[in-house]
């Protein structure tokens, strides 16, 4: 049975053998040492294939002083393209270059004299570019076939073709071997790539680790990267570093005592709370303990001082101040993060820039409010600027300035708010003013609120209900 089958169809055995050879020859070894480059490369992790548009081979090792080593290829690099150039000196060169370059899923770049390079993507085998050329030492375009890729490009008859570049995408070790084989008589260029996902993860991790050395590289990415997702990650890591640095005082208490646990009531409540939110320590009120979490919290107490110093050197403030402007930074998430950093760092130098954001009618309300919040965090030094912003401003600016002033308090702010409340007509502003004065809550503020209660006694508007609510809350709060 077997024999007759083989007799009838001799190819039946050869074909599987051929496939077996193919599998052995191309697909299966996970490593390959290339004599010409004197470099060993490795296949990608199988589950990485076709993910995150990753493809290529990884450099494992190089022979010292071999061609790859001399060219400064680095171990660990991912080679995702192999590129070869075909100089065009006559029409024959062009035709043979085309023949080689026309391959499935391949890019070729056409260099025409005095024109930018044309990148042509070939999707299927047999696609034609649609160019015919002629000439000896200078090769010129003779004909452009309509309906082909060439017809859609800015190429004219008579243009001089200088060179053709063939960019081969490397999907597997097999591709790598095959392509280098085809380019065996040419100079080749490797194009390597780095996954953006890895960078984003690194940026995020550096924010988590709270190390001083990360500050400058993160600022660099934030200002110079062209990848929005990476910039967003960098700015939120910087924000975390700023938050961490603000806890320096707390951590110095642990450091001074050289312990990882202190009585909770010996520490400042607000700092304790933010440290707990950031996951640095746990607070047990019943036991009255604040315990640094291992390993991060315990390690961080040694790093806190250095980070605090680095963050407060001033560069970060300058940077944040610049990127809160909508004209500079179109991405609202980044503007918001910069505002939040300024709120924590509280530089008086940022007051003017913050007021500009607060007053900007073209800015998003949430961002303007965040600018007001940052000003109120800066506190007393910002009062005059906020009062100036309040005078003669539109309702929404007034609203934000009022709540910022309420957050700061003090005689000056309080007196302005009282005067404003007594002359205010717009209900929206009235509510914010009441709220701000209630927050300040000193005797003159409460007297002013009392007068309002009498004023609106008969009224059936929201303000009366709101005032009643405010007084109820004030009564229940221990003072």
């Amino acid at each position, binding site marked *: 049975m077997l024999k007759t089958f083989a007799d009838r169809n001799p190819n039946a055995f050869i074909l599987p053998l051929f496939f077996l050879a193919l599998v052995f020859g191309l697909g*299966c*070894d*996970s490593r390959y040492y290339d004599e*010409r*480059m004197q470099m060993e490369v*490795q*296949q*990608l*992790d*199988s*589950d*990485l294939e076709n*993910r995150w548009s990753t493809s290529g*081979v*990884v450099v494992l090792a190089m022979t010292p002083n071999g*061609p*790859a080593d001399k*060219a*400064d*290829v680095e171990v*660990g*690099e*991912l080679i995702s393209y192999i*590129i070869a150039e075909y100089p065009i000196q006559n029409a024959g060169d062009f035709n043979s270059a085309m023949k080689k370059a026309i391959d499935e899923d391949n890019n070729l770049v056409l260099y025409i004299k005095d024109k930018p390079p044309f990148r042509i993507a070939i999707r299927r085998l047999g696609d034609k570019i649609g160019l015919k050329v002629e000439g000896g030492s200078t090769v010129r375009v003779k004909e452009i076939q309509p309906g082909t890729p060439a017809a859609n490009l800015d190429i004219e008859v008579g243009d001089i073709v200088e060179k053709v570049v063939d960019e081969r995408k490397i999907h597997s070790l097999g591709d790598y071997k095959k392509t280098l084989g085809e380019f065996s*008589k*040419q*100079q*080749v*260029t*490797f*194009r*390597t*790539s*780095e*996954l*953006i*996902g*890895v*960078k984003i*993860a*690194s*940026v*995020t*991790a*550096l924010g*988590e*680790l709270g*190390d001083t*050395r*990360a500050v400058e*590289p993160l600022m660099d*990415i934030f200002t110079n990267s062209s*990848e929005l997702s990476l910039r967003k990650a960098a700015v939120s890591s910087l924000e975390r570093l700023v938050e961490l640095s603000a806890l320096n005082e707390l951590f110095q208490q642990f450091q001074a005592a050289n312990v990882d646990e202190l009585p909770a009531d010996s520490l400042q409540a607000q700092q304790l709370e933010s440290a707990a939110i950031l996951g640095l320590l746990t607070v047990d009120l019943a036991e009255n303990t604040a315990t640094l979490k291992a*390993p*991060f*919290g315990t*390690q*961080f107490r040694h*790093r806190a001082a250095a980070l605090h110093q680095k963050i407060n050197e001033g560069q970060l403030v300058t940077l944040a101040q610049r990127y809160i402007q909508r004209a500079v930074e179109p991405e609202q998430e980044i503007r918001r993060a910069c505002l939040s950093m300024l709120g924590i760092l509280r530089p008086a130098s940022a007051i003017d820039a913050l007021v500009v954001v607060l007053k900007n009618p073209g800015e998003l309300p949430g961002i303007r409010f965040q600018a007001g919040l940052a000003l109120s965090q800066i506190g007393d030094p910002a009062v005059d600027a906020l009062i100036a912003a309040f005078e003669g401003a539109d309702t929404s600016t007034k609203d934000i300035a009022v709540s910022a002033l309420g957050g700061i308090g003090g005689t000056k702010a309080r007196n302005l708010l009282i005067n404003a409340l007594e002359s205010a007509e717009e209900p929206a502003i009235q509510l914010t003013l009441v709220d701000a004065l209630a927050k300040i809550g000193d005797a003159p503020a409460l007297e002013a609120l009392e007068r309002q209660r009498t004023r609106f006694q008969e009224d059936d508007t929201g303000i009366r209900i709101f005032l009643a609510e405010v007084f109820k809350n004030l009564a229940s709060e221990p003072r």
Partner: protein
Amino acid sequence: MRNCAISSLRSFCLALGLAVFIVACGTQNENLSKGKELIKSDKRRKEERAVREFKLAIQQQPDIAEAHYLLGFYDSQEFYEPGTPEWEKAAIAERGNHMFRAYQTEQRKYLETLIFETLRDDEPDVQNAALVALQQVYRKGDRSRLLSQLEKAMKSKDNRDRHDAHWVLGHLGKEDPGTLVPILVKLLDHGRMETRLNAVKALGEVGSEQAIPSLAALIDSGSAKWKRDREKPEVRQLAVEALGKIGGAAVPELVKIVQNKGSSLRVDAIRALSSLGDEKAVVPLLDALKAQSSREVVIPFAN
């Protein structure tokens, strides 16, 4: 004739069964039966009342296995005034001790019950009590039988068995990594992917540096020559997480993964490093940032 023999045999068996049943009923402690009845009933505060019965049963017969087991199972600190001796006795560790007492009297039966039933209870307190009991078995009881039962559970088709067993093995491993790590490492070769998955998780919970080489090899298998040698991505991903839990000497392994651009687990390794908070991670992460997104290297034609 033959028929007759069979029927007499059958009646004999029946009689024997009945006799055994009656004897068993007779020896069963009255309080124990009452307690069990209560549990089955829908009476108010039935557990609290049943627990009282189990305690009485133990007073009369200190070795009564079932009462010990049920007391360990149903007792709860919620029944008592905090600070009282009763309350103290209802702590998880004490409940575990009662379960262990049951095991001491009837080893085979209660070992299986603890592993395949008690651990499966929805109540975390019950699970924890069972864990305490099994830890006692490990220290004072038939260790090899315990381990073989846990291995059996790890290889089970039922996800709950595997999950419970990995949890116990992880805890036992913290006490005695020298014995447990090799057992778990051996399970990394098991044919069932879920078993390997749970073995990896348990190794992470054990947190012993002894497991690093095996986990590293498993992670590296992603670029193995043959498909059958490559571990599944989800298992490899968990192995990276496990390295993160081990920390210490595992940090360089994680750094190696970050540096290998052919690895699909770089992001996982970075996450593990960041949750560890280890300073050693900073420089490799900064290097990852420095790497250009894309560059071209010209290799001149060698003459």
